[in-house]
């Protein structure tokens, strides 16, 4: 995944002189997750821009520069720190076009490492991509594979709107095929990552990894699961989900993040509105526990839903 992102960033920098990268310690340090390691030597400090620890202002400045004609790519050290910049992101980034009656474009990509699983406790493990996905004006993507990461990054860079790319920290080391050609992955299109006819599993980012584990376990019992990777949280591709449910008549939603008000709460609501008649039973929704992320390994593992929890929910709901 890391190399795919690096390739996308290099392409952008090479292809357009108005593209620049901005973030805390992305230069000399190489980035908290080493995505931009070595970039500063290639592109120099004007384009690989280290910033003071001032999230609201540097993100706001990046937004301002996008309005001023540049194409910034911002990296948060952690999506947790995006909380300090919600003001600029939402009050200006997402709203200035509307508020001005369509006079400005905000072509910015904001990359944000997100998610838990590496014992960083409550201030560094929460995920807010679902909150951001509720904001009109944003597009929000959350890739699971290196292929999707590169393809979505390319699409994001072709957008004239703010795009937030939530990158799950546990996926940075993930391997996968990436072709040489300049393919793109459209924003707003979910992906059927595994075809099956008995139950639909919907997930995104790290949840997709869990969904595959679930599918493996179900397969041992002769149940064929279909795995849908949302890829885009906004816009949400309900068509792909509903089409799958029309075939399987069962659905389990998997979300690593807080269950209350989570991404899957929205998906569930839309399924009940648009696909109620397609289902043999209620939606089986599995989310993370509603607690601040604990530090201790066994506790942290407890709050993130694993495949067993999903299997139990499926059994309880559908008796399979």
């Amino acid at each position: 995944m890391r190399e795919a992102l690096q390739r996308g960033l290099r392409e952008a920098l090479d292809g357009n002189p108005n593209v620049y990268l901005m973030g805390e310690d992305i230069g000399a340090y190489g980035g908290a997750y080493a995505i931009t390691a070595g970039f500063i030597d290639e592109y120099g400090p004007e384009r690989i821009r280290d910033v003071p620890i001032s999230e609201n202002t540097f993100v706001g400045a990046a937004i301002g520069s996008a309005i001023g004609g540049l194409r910034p790519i911002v990296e948060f050290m952690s999506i947790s720190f995006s909380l300090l910049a919600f003001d600029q992101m939402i009050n200006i980034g997402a709203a200035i076009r509307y508020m001005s009656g369509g006079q400005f474009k905000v072509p910015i990509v904001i990359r944000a490492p997100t998610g838990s699983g590496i014992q960083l406790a409550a201030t560094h493990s929460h995920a807010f991509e679902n909150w951001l996905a509720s904001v009109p004006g944003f597009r929000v993507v959350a890739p699971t594979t290196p292929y999707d990461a590169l393809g979505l990054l390319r699409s994001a860079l072709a957008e004239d709107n703010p795009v937030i790319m939530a990158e799950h920290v546990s996926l940075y080391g993930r391997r996968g095929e990436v072709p040489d050609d300049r393919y793109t992955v459209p924003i707003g299109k979910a992906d059927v990552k595994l075809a099956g006819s008995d139950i639909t599993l919907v997930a995104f980012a790290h949840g997709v990894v869990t969904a595959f584990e679930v599918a493996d376990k179900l397969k041992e019992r002769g149940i064929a699961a279909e795995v849908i990777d949302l890829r885009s949280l906004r816009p949400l591709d309900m068509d792909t989900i509903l089409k799958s449910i029309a075939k399987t008549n069962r659905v389990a939603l998997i979300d690593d993040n807080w269950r209350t008000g989570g991404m899957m709460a929205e998906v569930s609501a839309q399924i009940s509105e648009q696909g109620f008649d397609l289902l043999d039973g209620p939606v089986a929704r599995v989310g993370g526990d509603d607690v601040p992320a604990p530090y201790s390994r066994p506790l942290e593992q407890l709050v993130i839903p694993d495949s067993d929890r999903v299997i139990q929910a499926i059994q309880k709901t559908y008796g399979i």
Partner: protein
Amino acid sequence: MKVLERAKKTLLADLFRQMYLIRVFEEKCGELYGKGLIRGFLHLYIGQEANAVGAISVLRPEDHIVTHYRDHGHALARGLDVNRCMAELFGRATGVSRGKGGSMHLFDASRNFYGGHAIVGGHFPLACGLALAAQYKREDRVVLVFFGDGSVNQGTFHEAMNLASLWRLPVIFYLENNLYGMGSAAGRVRAAGSDFQGAGHAYGMDVVTVDGMDVMAVREATQAAAERARSGKGPAFIEAKTFRFQGHSMADPVKYRGHSEVEHWRKRDPLVTFPRTLVENGLVPEKELDRIRKEVEATIDEAIKFAEDSPWPGPEAVNEDIYA
């Protein structure tokens, strides 16, 4: 006085015209608010006209302006269409922001006027970003950002001052110190009270204090600041001492300050002192000022008529302008 004599008479007359335009616009807005034709929050600029007019008069068309919610004066001084500004306050489709922004959110890309921002302190980063874009593209532009004494207490002010100074961004920070943020006198909400020198010094900037009731003094200070910013020396900081004659917004009963303070400042009303100086020194005759007054009043009447006659935005507008 010397400054006045050196200035062209047409310029002096025009500075008066602009200040009077803002004054009448604002007075009418107050009336229209009472009649329910303008709604939402309305913050009048009455008393502060010399700041917008003086500072913006030394900018070039390609320079950028960013301001806060008390923005009518800045918009008009920048030459935004009076009719369309009024229509925006009426919420009409012909408004500068298509009726989607209202009083606090006036925008005009064609005049490099980037709002109209109503999160106190929320516009500082935008100013830095616009300046960064100009610097990055090697464009010869400066960014003028207006703000109030209350916003200096926001984190973004300090973050933006640091960033602008660190990167030598061409930003002119123009503080309109009207002594109050809503009902809070600076001394009650700022550890350093109403002394703003330290606010600049902490980030390696000199703070130039100017009389914000004197349009010529404002011009001179902003000219110097713009030269500094243009020359690549980095940002400049101006503190203008000024006063709003009316309440913070139309909802403010003004219980936090005394009548005598208001009277004291009213004696320095730029719309009294400036024309008086022009006439007394034989720079612009009273007759000419009267002609300008009549012309401005007609312009505002026309703007109100334009706004009233303008269509409301259609329902289709609700979902427009969200994405590019």
